[in-house]
């Protein structure tokens, strides 16, 4: 198989002595760092930890669902397990995954800056994340919570005596971590671009992070106030969500989904940014319709705020308002379609190679297309009646979040691993892992579409026996998927020490991050670059190489 990997001569290659990792030593130098790259590494370690916890909980869920009866655990235990799975995966993994790790690491470098605009706020956001994480761990240790990650009132306010308060506080804190990350990105992208780095020379990765950041800044506080009101309702009984006192429990859902629908765009948009970078690099081509892809990100961010009620179509909201929200949902589906087609046509007349990040990107495109299209089923008012609150929605959500976001995250981690660590991951085994993940994923979640259509409700610890076969398929698939996720953790750790030296630009990619040493210097650039070319300009790269060769030969 032909490849574009170009590594330096391994016998003479060295990791640069001075880089952001070796600059200072000691735990304290990490814990008090202002360096966006180190904070990204801190984030990477902590979200991997929480991903492992969330993954283990997912394993328990699938094991329980192997049989129709609730025999592995009692129903309330099962309820706690899926609640904690949701809370951990969404608030502690998916929301910060790409932005806080890859975004943190790359955005300043991609725009030619030395750091994010507000390094201290960046560090603060990591500490808030950790504080939120510790609260979640405390919640689990104290016996968990069983509200479901959606905290539906009045169940969460009056009918449960599990640790709703600590979970609410945890999410509140983690939410502020996400607000600070988003705020930092927006400021950085506006104010810190290198000379010549105009808006339309920005890599699409930066565009999609910009769009996601808008959602983080404007959406998250509404979740925060919804949680504050839940906490006040529980502690004081102010009645805002209490039907007995004249409150409307549906109001909570309005406030909750005002954040939590845009939140799925917060999760998926950065992933889309990764895919743009990967597909361009491995087909050696400028992204087809750069402006369309850039603006579709912003369109998703804007329209994302107008569609939240599609989570509530059957909940007794006004039938007339469902029309508006359903129509707007259709509009927000279009930018995603635009992106998929533009990525497909980026391949056209390219020169394509199939390294691991590209395989993950292909996986993303396939799974995200399914996830997106099934989203239209749920955004259409008529079919939503039958499909909502069943396994269809579970499958849809996991296709977008796990099939989409997690694939993109893994694509990005593999793609920038050489930049972050200076070493390559092992190519063959990682391609295998990508394949295993893809197969395992489909085995796990595709049967759930059929289960949902058949009517199996979500969040059931026990279910009618006729659904067992498909559930067994799903659980079997989950074990394959588990292997697919375990492998990267193992071989990436291995490669930290034994991986091949990557050199500055193993992929021959055009981004500014590839023109500096790997791992980068603490200040990223020895001198601030002056940008004189568009993103994904492979001719420029070619000219640069020719120029460099001339210089060396002289």
């Amino acid at each position, binding site marked *: 198989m032909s490849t574009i990997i170009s590594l330096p001569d391994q016998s003479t290659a060295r990791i640069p002595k001075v880089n952001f990792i070796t600059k200072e030593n000691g735990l304290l130098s990490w814990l008090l760092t202002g360096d966006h790259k180190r904070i990204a590494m801190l984030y990477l370690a902590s979200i991997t930890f929480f991903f492992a916890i969330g993954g283990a909980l997912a394993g328990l869920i699938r094991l329980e669902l192997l049989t129709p009866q609730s025999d592995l655990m009692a129903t309330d235990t099962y309820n706690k397990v899926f609640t904690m799975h949701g809370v951990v995966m969404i608030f502690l993994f998916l929301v910060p995954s790409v932005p806080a790790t890859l975004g943190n690491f790359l955005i300043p470098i991609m725009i030619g800056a030395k750091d994010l605009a507000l390094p201290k706020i960046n560090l603060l956001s990591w500490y808030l994340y950790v504080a939120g994480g510790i609260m979640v761990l405390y919640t689990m240790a104290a016996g968990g919570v069983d509200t479901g990650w959606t905290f539906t009132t009045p169940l969460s306010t009056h009918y449960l005596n599990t640790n709703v308060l600590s979970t609410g506080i945890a999410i509140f804190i983690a939410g502020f971590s996400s607000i600070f990350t988003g705020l930092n990105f*927006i*400021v950085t992208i*506006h104010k*810190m671009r290198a000379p010549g780095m105009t808006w339309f020379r920005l890599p699409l990765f930066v565009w999609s992070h910009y769009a996601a950041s808008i959602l983080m800044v404007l959406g998250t*506080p*509404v979740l925060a*106030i919804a949680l504050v009101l839940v906490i*006040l309702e529980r502690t004081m009984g*102010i*009645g805002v969500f209490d039907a007995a006192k004249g409150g409307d429990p549906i109001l909570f859902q309005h406030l909750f989904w005002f954040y939590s629908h845009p939140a799925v765009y917060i999760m998926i948009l950065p992933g889309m940014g990764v895919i743009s970078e990967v597909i361009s690099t491995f087909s050696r081509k400028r992204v087809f319709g750069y402006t369309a892809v850039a603006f579709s990100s912003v369109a998703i961010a804007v329209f994302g705020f107008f569609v939240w009620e599609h989570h509530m179509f059957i909940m007794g909201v006004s039938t007339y308002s469902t029309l508006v929200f359903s129509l707007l949902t259709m509009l927000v589906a279009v930018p995603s379609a635009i992106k998929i087609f533009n990525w497909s046509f980026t391949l056209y007349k390219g020169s394509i190679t199939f390294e691991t990040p590209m395989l993950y990107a292909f996986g993303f495109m396939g799974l995200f297309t399914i996830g997106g299209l099934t989203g239209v089923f749920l955004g259409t008012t008529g079919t939503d009646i039958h499909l909502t609150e069943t396994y269809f929605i579970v499958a849809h959500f996991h296709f977008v979040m796990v099939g989409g976001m997690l694939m993109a995250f893994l694509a990005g981690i593999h793609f920038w691993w050489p930049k972050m660590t200076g070493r390559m991951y092992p190519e063959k085994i990682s391609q295998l892992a990508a394949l295993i993940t893809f197969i395992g994923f489909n085995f796990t979640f595709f049967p759930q579409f059929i289960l949902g259509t058949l009517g199996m409700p979500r969040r059931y610890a026990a279910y009618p026996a006729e659904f067992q076969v498909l559930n067994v398929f799903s659980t079997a698939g989950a074990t394959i998927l588990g292997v697919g996720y375990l492998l990267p953790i193992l071989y990436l750790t291995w490669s930290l020490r034994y991986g091949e030296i990557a050199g500055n630009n193993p992929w021959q990619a055009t981004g500014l991050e590839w023109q500096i040493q790997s791992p980068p210097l603490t200040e990223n650039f020895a001198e601030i670059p002056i940008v004189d070319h568009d993103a994904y300009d492979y001719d420029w790269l070619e000219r640069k190489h020719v120029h460099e060769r001339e210089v060396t030969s002289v």
Partner: protein
Amino acid sequence: MEQQVDATGFAMWLFLLTEIMFFGGLFTAYLIYRNWYYPAFVAGSHQLSILWGTLNTGVLITSSFTMAMGVWCAETRRKGGLVLCLVLTFLLGLVFLGIKTIEYSEKIEKHHVPGFHYSLKSFTDPNSDEAAKTAGDKPLPLDMARHTEMYFGLYFAMTGMHALHMIIGIAILAFMIVRAQAGAYTTGHITFVENFGLYWHFVDIVWIFLFPLLYLISRHG
């Protein structure tokens, strides 16, 4: 450095956007229930002292003014003026919270705190209650009277969140006074003062809306 100064100002504005949305949820809830339970909201609002409310609005606006003057002093490097303005802002902030405490304790005495032995007496029997009597309230039917609890729930949630912002602001002010005394903001590094000013004015704006929404619902006959 200039880039940094610029960036923090912009960041402060973005942070204020999150604050707007944070209060946005409360305002949404308020509008819905006020629309549903208007008589209860009227009766509830008559329990608030318009004198204290107006006074507090004046106090807060004045504190915004002294804060703005403080920023001006920092800009023009007048150390004494800056310290004076900050101290005045600090004191006015405390006065605001003091008045708020008086108001809260009145509510606690009358059992108007939702969830804690909430009492409907002032609403079902307005003659027994000074404030309701002065406002000329008619007795509310029991079902509507019960919804005054919603009014007070929102009252405490909204003014409580606002007061929390005030407390945070006052704490930062105390820190700033010490730093200003040492001359930290009168050598050209005014970003912190400016950004804090933005925050303080924002808190003022929230109150500018809370005041008519909570205190001034139908004061006439």
